[in-house]
């Protein structure tokens, strides 16, 4: 049984694979245009000083999004992360 978490809950340095994107309209489009599509591998590489926005590494570049936007994204963690 894979562990699926919300992107907001991920810790720095944790990585996983995007499962679903729930955002609609322009936000949904922007997120996908930037390469956040289901199946993409991401690593959380940092959080801004006030814990928000969050910085992700994917497809060879760094992307930032707000926690309120990360809420629309669910991520599957590799089994090792179960602990």
């Amino acid at each position, binding site marked *: 049984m894979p562990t699926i978490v919300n992107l907001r809950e991920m810790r720095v340095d944790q990585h996983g694979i995007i499962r679903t994107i729930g955002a*609609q309209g322009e936000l949904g489009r922007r997120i996908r*245009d*930037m390469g956040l*599509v289901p199946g993409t591998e991401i690593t959380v590489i940092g959080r*801004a000083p006030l814990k*928000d*926005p969050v910085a992700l*590494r994917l497809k060879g*570049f760094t992307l930032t999004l707000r926690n309120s936007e990360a809420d629309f994204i669910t991520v599957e963690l590799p089994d090792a992360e179960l602990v």
Partner: protein
Amino acid sequence: MPNLSEPVIATIALAGNPNAGKTTLFNSLTGSRQHVGNYPGITVEKKEGYVDTPHGLTRVVDLPGTYSLTAYSQEELVARNFLIHERPQGVINVLDATSLERNLYLTVQFLEIGIPVTVALNMVDALEAKGMRIDSDRLASLMNVPVVRTVARSDKGVREALDAAMNHPQKAWQPLHISYGPDLDPVLKEMTDLIEARDFLTQTYPPRWLALKFLENDLVVRQLFEADSELHRNMRDMADNVARHCEKTLKTQPEFIVADYRYGYISSILRQGVLTIQPDLQGRADLSDKIDSVLTHQLAGPIIMLGILYGLFSVTFAIGQVPMGWVESFFEWLSSLAMQMPPGLTRSLVVDGIIAGVGGVLGFVPLILIMFLGITFLEDSGYMARMAYMLDRVFRIFGLHGSSVVPFIISGGIPGGCAVPGVMAARTLRSPKEKLATLLTAPFMVCGAKVPVFILLAAAFFPEHGARVMFLITLVGWAAALVVAKMLRSSVIRGPSTPFVMELPPYRMPTTMGMILHTWERGWQYIKKAGTVILAISVLIWAMMTFPALSPEAAAPIESQIQTLERRLATEPIEEIRLALQNDISELNLHIKEETLANSLAGRLGRAIEPVTAWAGFDWRTNIALVGGIAAKEVIVSTLATAHALSDAEAQAFSARIASAPSWNTSVAVSLMIFVLLYSPCFVTVVAIAREASWGWAVFSVVFNTGFAFVLAVATYQLGMRMGW
């Protein structure tokens, strides 16, 4: 400038993601043979230049950097409209090789339009340093486009890319058709057939592209179809049906399926041996990531950011002093030259009006250029994006966006900027509401033209604390900008915030050429302002302060007094008495100047509003300067000096003079500083706001800012008087 006798044989567009190195490639191709304008009616920059090729002159158009070609942003619309309506011979698509997958997403969209695409695979050096390799021949054959490896910052492969685009094998437009899966492909086919059958706009748009955009819910394309109501209705029914089906079975929408399939198409290409990774070099942390672990560290990050901003500010002022002195001496020399003219109205116009006004502004040019050089470095190196990232949480509280930091800083968030390029920099904000709130509040910052006012008043009333006063006034500017932004965003420009989703580009050392061009573009706005608007305003203010002339009846008694004293001086033998006489004569001369001013149009205006401005502690002389300052803040100090009957040369003495003047005290000084900081933006900024937003908002900024500044100034003054400052 291009040699216009030579015919332009082709137009090639440059396109690509932001930060892919598109502008560097453009600069490398065209050098200084480029100019920046605007697309008609909107505020997206249009850059074009000319290149000599063996066959003739080629026009190169640098399209705005975009990630996609949706109708959500003006940049994306501009890029796709240019390609579709102006039909250039081809497009050079600049790709950042280090993030090939995401960059190809735009390439696929160009291919779907059908324009001949040449791929410039840029920054291959950075990719290889990371231990990765791209087989460009394989990429070329799989995508069926010419691929040229480039390192634009060292001019490598740049000409080859242009040659490849000029000699592109594909002569006609051939739209690429990729599969969008079993749910969308049938309806896409049906829609395409329908468009073709009715021959709807097929001369301009590829039919399948129109159908795809219709499915993607592209508002601009959907509007096109309103011209044919029957077709529109049919298309809408089909689109609605498939949307309902997707929602029910896949819990998603056609436009998202399209994006997913595009990425699927790209990864299927990349999997076929295009990208190889050298295992021994893998896992080596990215240099940018390493730098980020310090520069955006949760604790160290903000501290370093403040340090960088403070450092930029002090360096600007330390270095800027030197060339500023040169420009000042130049205008002093010019002024002394003009003094050779016979005394009278013309000389007064040239010396007091034109040279004093324009010279005062141009004196700041070196300072502003150095400031912009620093800001450009922060921007082009990638640090500005980190500032937006770190500050977004704070800015969001006030209804702004992390990227609002750029316009704020350029406007004078670090004292010495200029609101004109600052307001223009707000263009990078995608949401119209956040952009509006940013450009309405950016003029509260300490621009270079306000700085002399604060320096003067600080020297007069806080002689030991000049730096601290400047620091505090900067903080007040920021606080006012944020608080007013919050007020606006929760009243007149209420609305949800736009997606933040933003790339943090890799840190890069900016190219010298790019820095110089970028700095010059901004500095030029300021110089243009000095040459046009400020010149006109200086003359106008001079005229208002000169006419109507003092009536002979009013001037006669003082002039006869001067004549009497001069006669006595001519025969007076004792040195001490001579000195006293000379002193009296110059006092009387000043008195005439003062009377002339008081009697002039400006003086009458200043007196007329004195009963109101007295609430904030401003007398009629200050009023004249402030009214002039609506035109350009630069004229405040020089007008104050004239109003107190002092020439510019005596400006040093001026601060001592107002410090002891009966109508001045610390409360007046603080109130005036607050007012100057916050009141109406200068005329050129108002025009810039009108261009970026509308004339309605431009007028709003004049009225609202002045009212807001006046209320705060009155409060400060009244409080100060009661506290006995």
